[in-house]
């Protein structure tokens, strides 16, 4: 709606237009003039009462019109909220044993049933969520940060930095990720969630670095970067002030999807016995424990279902962000 009202005529901007591109070098050249400025200006010269929205405001609008993405976001808030507040939400402790209910099915006292030692499965799942969440968020944040810096430097300077980065990613891509992680886990040890997270980060950052490098390579040749360089911007300013904001779209999407992927991989490692080990609670470990009780379906179903729900919600949010942050996509989604 606002789209159609956007001034397409240069005459609406009698004074600003000439210096427009030089003053606002960080904007995408393809993006409309009004949006890149982002400030709460009104075009009073034109006599129109236009509400000017920044790029982020548009992204937010597109995101919140994406029904699945919003549903995913709500799902994540609920599930992760339960994980953060595990001490309050979980009705029993992680190790609390109820000898009167051993291998009991789901009931009102034990929502997800109990395991072979009479421990409440619902509480164990909640504590497991907390661990999964810690792994997912830690891996996504740290590997995104490392990948962002290395990818930016490699893409900006090129040369041996770039060569080294590409050779390292080639090495990592020579083996399936699970094989690399299993081998790394035998060497670097397994145990609590932080050790496993660090092992995951060691191999996750390469993906983000590749993405950032690709964007930087293409941005390096853009006119606005040249303009900024001509007006005397240094390397650091060019990289972090002018180029980095334009990589944020794909980076945010990748980081979001990395949360889900890290949780999936961690659960597989823990299931195989090479990831998080008891006493640290983990969803993959709970499913592994359930293997000896094939008659007690609830011990397998509920922890696994929780993993599916978390990853599903994260993927929905990632998809919504992908659509919302794509500056090419102007159309509003119903």
């Amino acid at each position: 709606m606002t789209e159609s009202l956007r001034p397409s005529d240069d005459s609406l901007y009698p004074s600003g237009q000439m210096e427009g591109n030089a003053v606002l070098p960080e904007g995408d050249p393809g993006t409309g003039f009004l949006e890149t400025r982002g400030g709460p200006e009104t075009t009073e010269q034109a006599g129109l009462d236009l509400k000017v929205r920044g790029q982020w405001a548009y992204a937010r609008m597109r995101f919140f019109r994406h029904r699945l993405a919003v549903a995913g976001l709500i799902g994540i808030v609920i599930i992760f909220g339960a994980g953060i507040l595990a001490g309050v939400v979980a009705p029993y402790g992680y190790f609390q044993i109820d000898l009167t209910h051993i291998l009991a099915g789901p009931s009102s006292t034990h929502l997800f049933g109990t395991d072979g030692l009479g421990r409440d499965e619902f509480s164990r799942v909640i504590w497991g969520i907390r661990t999964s969440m810690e792994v997912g968020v830690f891996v996504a944040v740290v590997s995104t940060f490392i990948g962002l810096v290395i990818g930016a430097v490699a893409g900006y300077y090129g040369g041996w930095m770039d060569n080294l980065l590409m050779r390292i990613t080639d090495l990592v891509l020579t083996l399936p990720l699970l094989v690399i992680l299993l081998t790394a886990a035998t060497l670097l040890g397994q145990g609590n969630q932080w050790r496993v997270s660090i092992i995951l980060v060691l191999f996750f950052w390469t993906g983000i670095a590749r993405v950032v490098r690709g964007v930087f390579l293409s941005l390096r040749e853009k006119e606005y970067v040249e303009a900024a360089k001509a007006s005397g911007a240094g390397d650091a300013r060019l990289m972090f002030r002018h180029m980095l904001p334009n990589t944020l779209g794909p980076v945010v999407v990748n980081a979001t999807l990395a949360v889900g992927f890290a949780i999936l991989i961690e659960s597989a490692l823990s299931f195989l016995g090479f990831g998080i080990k008891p006493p640290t609670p983990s969803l993959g470990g709970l499913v592994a424990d359930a293997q000896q009780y094939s008659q007690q379906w609830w011990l397998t179903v509920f922890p696994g279902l929780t993993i599916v729900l978390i990853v599903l919600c994260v993927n929905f949010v990632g998809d919504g962000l992908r659509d919302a942050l794509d500056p090419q996509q102007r159309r509003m989604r119903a």
Partner: protein
Amino acid sequence: MLTYIVRRILYSIPVLFLATFVSFIFVSYAGNPVSLLRQNPRVPKSTIENLIHQQHLDVSPFVRYFYWLDSVFLHGFGKSLQTLQPIWPQMTRTMGHTLQFIVISEVLALVLGIAVGIYSAIRQYSVFDYSFTTIGFLGFAMPTFWLALLLQIAFTDIFLHWNIRIFYTSGLNTLPGGPAWSLDRMQHLALPVLTLLIISFALYSRYMRASMLDVINSDYVRTARAKGVSEWRVIMKHVFRNALIPITTVAALNFGALIGGAIVTETVFSLDGFGYWFIQALNSLDIYEMMAYIFITAVAVVVFNLIADIMYGFLDPRIRYD
């Protein structure tokens, strides 16, 4: 094209050597492979010392790597540390089992995925499309081990409750041989195949749908429609054939990764396959078995990457490698 292939092969050789070298050092420092033997009171000390010397465990891993390379190329990957059996026959046996179920499930997943992808794209936003989109999303979010366990539980319970044996839930065979042997093998392979099929199907159907939609909205399809070509011909001749190009790449890459990557499925169903063999080697810290697996897997990934690129250049004349 030929120079491109030769250049790619020449480039992948140092990458392979470096990858195996790094893994070898990794694996060598992972733990002491003879610690299990030392705990066994029935194995005399001199035997262990002999073993350490014969298997080059007394030299530094950097030197040992070259002994290992020698065994790879001249002695069929050498001998296992734990059982002292030659590695090559074990590899061919387990690899055979893995290939059996991977090929079946990948072919089925491709056929089904392509069919569903086409129909979803033609009838975009229909009930059919939405249901398979949901299945696709679930397939991406589902841990493989959980899916495998659910199938296992379901069929174990069917057997225990009604005493009907539809599919076996672990192992490869119960009959030693005889006329019903093939059927018996299929009953054992069905659930691993189904697990992998569901996971791969999610990937292929989503990919096929996306690439169909890409082509359907292109200019040359509009031209074909405008000049009066029948809808069936437009879809089959103009859209379908072009939409197949990206999926061949995905399938080749996926297959290359699966040769070593069916670890989880094989472990759940205790299937005597390549990935399960690796997990056992990992648990007993048998560095030579682990390295044999890593070597083969790395070669498979590199080779199938190359195949994917070559197929792409072959199928899409717009791509020129030079």
